[in-house]
């Protein structure tokens, strides 16, 4: 292990520029002569567009062009596709409704793009937008997830009951059988609340067309340039070589910036038409109306138990809101994304899940930090907790009784995942001890004296990440021994640059200052899977290591020449003094930088081009236990998190600072979902009610105590670095732990469940109505 290598708490090399305002975000880029794009959005949730008249608006000062669906149609621009195929239940029909770039004939959610105005300035564009005459015939709207299947309003005329898909997983007959002979069935109805990602940096893009090369370049805040490029090429029906996508700094993505949005297509289209760069930058108000949302499920979950409290089976019936159209990955998130994790950390012999995706008159819903796994963990860990309470068992004991033991690894779940490693009971015990559960009754009594009801909640989560697409890495070495890493993952603020430097420093024994990284350029970096599903460090990191190893292979003959030794006698060593080749059985040694200096540069001035690639054979399965103590003020219902303990298993740790930051952020985000955040639409008009931070409550620093974070790692058996993905885990464990704690706090008042977000008025009413019921 070296000073800057794997496992070291190396501070982020990005922070110097980011904290000093020297970062370069999309909206920092300015092109000579650039124009402003502005989207005229639907004010209605559902309406027929009878006509659009842009005549007056187009003649206003500074207006370059105004585009509507007719222009796109004429140019052969296709809808933005949902790219994940889905095999629906036998006898049912999949209705794939892709997202139009501009509304054609109907608007189906408030904020849907209707026209794109290109002007010299933003205010000119906004003035023109007010002068575009759109004749709408308003229609009834449905926004509510559970109501969509029976509501008379139809989002798409040819989709009966608004049912996008009816999908299932698992063995229904076998599961029904175990339920039929179960000693007890525990049922829980729960809502996974709809959220807006709200990154600090909103979405933005800048398109320019190089007429000579006939290439359209899009600078965009994304989570991966290659998928974005391919998506654009598909929508335009052109070769992908005609699109060059760049991403600079990104101020938070959380899944939401993975997707191709109408504005990006419009900017490219407009830049070609007006022959000038066209920039579009979301306002915060637009972000609430146009960013894809997350979560939004209504579920019925059931657990079958035997007489001893052993789990026999689990059933879930899930309705998932898709919004008005299917976003890029919408069909995956609540189907396989969620249901494959319904085993949790437990031995559950039979599982069956049915998921119905429904269309509503709301903007599309897609991946959001965790992308289905938080929904699964919430469902499982809430259901487990409820079951323990119903049969009068201690929630920790009930978990222990049903947990998959380490001896069962690798463990194949009924829904097809193979857990490679994990000591679930181990993290549970460690977390309970660190949380001083033994001292909880005394703390509860003391809180009661202060007018607060204290509860303790446990969630032992597991999630699946860092599987799927391969990642490639290229390491270009210069004669001075410096390394330029090219990689197709995309930091959104996580600190990839620091982490990858550590992998390279570990393998090659060079200083971090001698390493630079290029990401976010679809021409310079040939391939890339982007960043999502906590894949960058486990998958990208493994590719980087492979590439660094390839550098050593290429350097070996040069070193052999310098050392006048046989290549096979050389061993690459990394010491505190740096990396280099040693001759086995002698004290002869040549530092790596001398090898680089002696090697012959290629035409680009590089002496070695290390190529690495890693294809994950499987997901990794990070897991851990969150223990939360939360108090509820009896007078007001205000919840306050008093203690937060988390013990995680992320396998081998690359950088404990970055890791803990990910966990803290994830927990804050999960806490936001559990206690504060909710996207609400008016059920009659379909208008967005929480369209700003005045009404949409975000988590703040004073909502959280210091988090007691520790690790109990079991190295991943399927990842070459032993890593398990860590980007989403905090958000996955937090929600169930917090709600379990609230239910524990209010259990004496007869409360068995509270939906998220559990706000003060909701909690106060639960206490108050229970009081009234007791009095009566």
């Amino acid at each position: 292990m070296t000073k800057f290598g794997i496992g070291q708490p190396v501070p982020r090399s990005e922070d110097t520029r980011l904290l000093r305002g020297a970062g370069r975000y999309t909206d920092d880029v300015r092109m000579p002569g650039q124009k402003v794009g502005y989207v005229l959005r639907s004010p209605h949730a559902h309406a027929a567009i009878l006509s659009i008249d842009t005549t007056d608006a187009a003649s206003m000062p500074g207006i370059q062009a105004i585009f509507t669906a007719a222009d796109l149609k004429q140019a052969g621009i296709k809808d933005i596709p949902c790219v994940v195929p889905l095999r629906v239940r036998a006898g049912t029909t999949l209705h794939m409704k892709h997202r139009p770039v501009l509304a054609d004939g109907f608007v189906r959610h408030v904020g849907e793009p209707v026209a794109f105005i290109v002007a010299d300035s933003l205010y000119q564009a906004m003035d023109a937008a007010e002068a575009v005459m759109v004749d709408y015939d308003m229609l009834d709207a449905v926004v509510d997830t559970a109501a969509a299947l029976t509501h008379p309003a139809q989002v798409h005329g040819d989709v009966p009951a608004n049912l996008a898909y009816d999908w299932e997983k698992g063995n229904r007959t076998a599961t029904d059988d175990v339920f039929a002979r179960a000693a007890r069935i525990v049922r829980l109805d729960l809502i996974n609340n709809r959220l807006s990602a709200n990154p600090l940096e909103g979405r933005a893009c800048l398109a320019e067309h190089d007429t000579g090369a006939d290439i359209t370049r899009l600078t965009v805040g994304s989570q991966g340039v290659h998928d974005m490029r391919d998506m654009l090429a598909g929508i335009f029906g052109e070769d992908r070589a005609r699109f060059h996508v760049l991403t600079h700094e990104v101020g938070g993505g959380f899944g939401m910036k993975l997707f191709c949005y109408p504005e990006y297509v419009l900017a490219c289209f407009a830049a070609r038409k007006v022959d000038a760069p066209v920039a579009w930058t979301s306002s915060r108000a637009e972000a609430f109306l146009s960013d894809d949302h997350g979560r939004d499920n209504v579920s019925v979950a059931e657990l079958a138990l035997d007489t001893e409290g052993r789990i026999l089976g689990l059933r879930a019936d899930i309705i998932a809101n898709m919004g008005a159209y299917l976003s890029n990955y919408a069909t995956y998130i609540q189907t396989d994304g969620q249901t494959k994790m319904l085993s949790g950390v437990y031995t559950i012999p039979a599982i069956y899940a049915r998921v119905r995706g429904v269309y509503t008159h709301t903007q599309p819903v897609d991946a959001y930090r965790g992308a289905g796994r938080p929904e699964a963990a919430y469902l499982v860990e809430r259901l487990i907790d409820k079951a323990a309470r119903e049969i009068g068992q201690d929630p920790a004991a009930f978990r222990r009784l049903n947990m998959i033991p380490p001896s069962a690894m690798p463990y194949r779940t009924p829904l097809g995942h193979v857990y490679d490693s994990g000591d679930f009971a181990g993290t549970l015990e460690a977390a309970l001890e660190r949380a001083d559960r033994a001292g909880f009754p005394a703390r509860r009594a003391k809180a009661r004296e202060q007018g607060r009801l204290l509860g303790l909640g446990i969630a032992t989560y597991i999630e699946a990440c860092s599987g799927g697409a391969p990642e490639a890495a290229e390491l270009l070495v210069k004669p001075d021994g410096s390394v330029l890493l090219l990689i197709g993952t995309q930091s959104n603020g996580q600190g990839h640059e620091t982490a990858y430097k550590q992998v390279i420093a570990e393998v090659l024994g060079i200083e971090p200052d001698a390493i630079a990284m290029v990401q976010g350029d679809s021409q310079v970096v040939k391939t890339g899977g982007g960043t999502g599903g906590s894949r960058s460090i486990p998958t990208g990191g493994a590719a980087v290591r492979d590439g660094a190893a390839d550098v050593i292979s290429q350097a070996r003959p040069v070193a052999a020449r310098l050392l006048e030794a046989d290549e096979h006698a050389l061993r690459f060593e990394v010491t505190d003094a740096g990396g280099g080749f040693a001759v086995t059985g002698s004290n002869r040694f040549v530092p790596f930088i001398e090898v680089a200096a002696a090697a012959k540069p290629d035409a680009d001035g590089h002496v070695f081009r290390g190529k690495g690639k890693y294809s994950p054979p499987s997901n990794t399965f990070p897991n851990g236990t969150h223990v939360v103590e939360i108090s509820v003020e009896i007078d007001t219902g205000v919840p306050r998190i008093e203690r937060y303990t988390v013990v995680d298993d992320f396998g081998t740790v690359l950088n404990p600072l970055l890791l803990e930051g990910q966990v803290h952020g994830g927990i804050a985000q999960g806490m936001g979902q559990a206690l504060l955040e909710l996207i609400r639409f008016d059920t009659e008009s379909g208008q967005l009610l929480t369209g700003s931070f005045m009404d949409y409550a975000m988590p703040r620093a004073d909502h959280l105590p210091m988090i007691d974070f520790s690790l109990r790692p079991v190295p991943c058996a399927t990842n070459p670095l032993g890593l398990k993905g860590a980007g989403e885990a905090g958000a996955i464990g937090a929600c169930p732990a917090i709600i379990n704690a609230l239910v524990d706090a209010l259990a004496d008042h007869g409360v068995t469940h509270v939906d998220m977000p559990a706000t003060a008025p909701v909690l106060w009413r639960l206490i108050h109505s229970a009081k009234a019921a007791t009095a009566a």
Partner: protein
Amino acid sequence: MYGFDYHRPTALADVVALLIADEDAKVLAGGQTLIPTLKQRLAMPSALVDLSAVPGLREIVAEGDGVRIGAMATHAAVARNALVRAVLPGLADLAAHIGDAQVRNRGTIGGSIANADPAADYPAAVVALDAIIRTDRRDIAGGAFFTGLFETALQPGEVMTSLFFPAASHARYAKFSNPASRYAMAGVFVAKRGDAVRAAVTGAGPSVFRWHAAEAALSARFSADALDGLVLDAEGLNSDMHADAAYRAHLVGVLARRAIA
């Protein structure tokens, strides 16, 4: 934002003249409500008349047994002013918890009061302390100033210049913040001057109002438990997605007790 004219007069008389000459002109104080409203194109004033160059509007001075605060004094200035902290620490504390640091450094007491947002904090202090609002032409009693939702006794073209807050033996504000905006979901200011007690409630209704039953109980005995069994009628209180009227009514009781303790 739509286009508008911008004036920055250096005399109060010029401010008044500009406002009288153009009924669609708006006064700009700290701009913490007005500028976001303009940016969202929710208002279309013909002109903004900026008060920032008019001299003498930011001063905080002792007067009688109380304190006179210039209408352009920022929340931050009120919060940290030694005189205010000595005479009415409850008022300084109220100012210290408005919005965030940026808002407190720009937003002004006069702007907040003239805007009469139903969830603003200052109106509760103005009514509970029976402050006197001085304008370019007259003094207005605090109890008569707020006339409805975003409505005040100010006449067209009338400009607030300062506020006089009398000293009180007890003056304290308790607020329950909306978790999103951190405006008052409900706030109660309780003030005791001599034998008279006033309890003014903000955030819970369409405009600040006095809770007379609580005032009577506290006048008889100034103690939190004097409010035991007293519940504000929820009828007519604000009900929205954040909290219904019954919860707000309950909160007012809780906050009134906290404003005494």
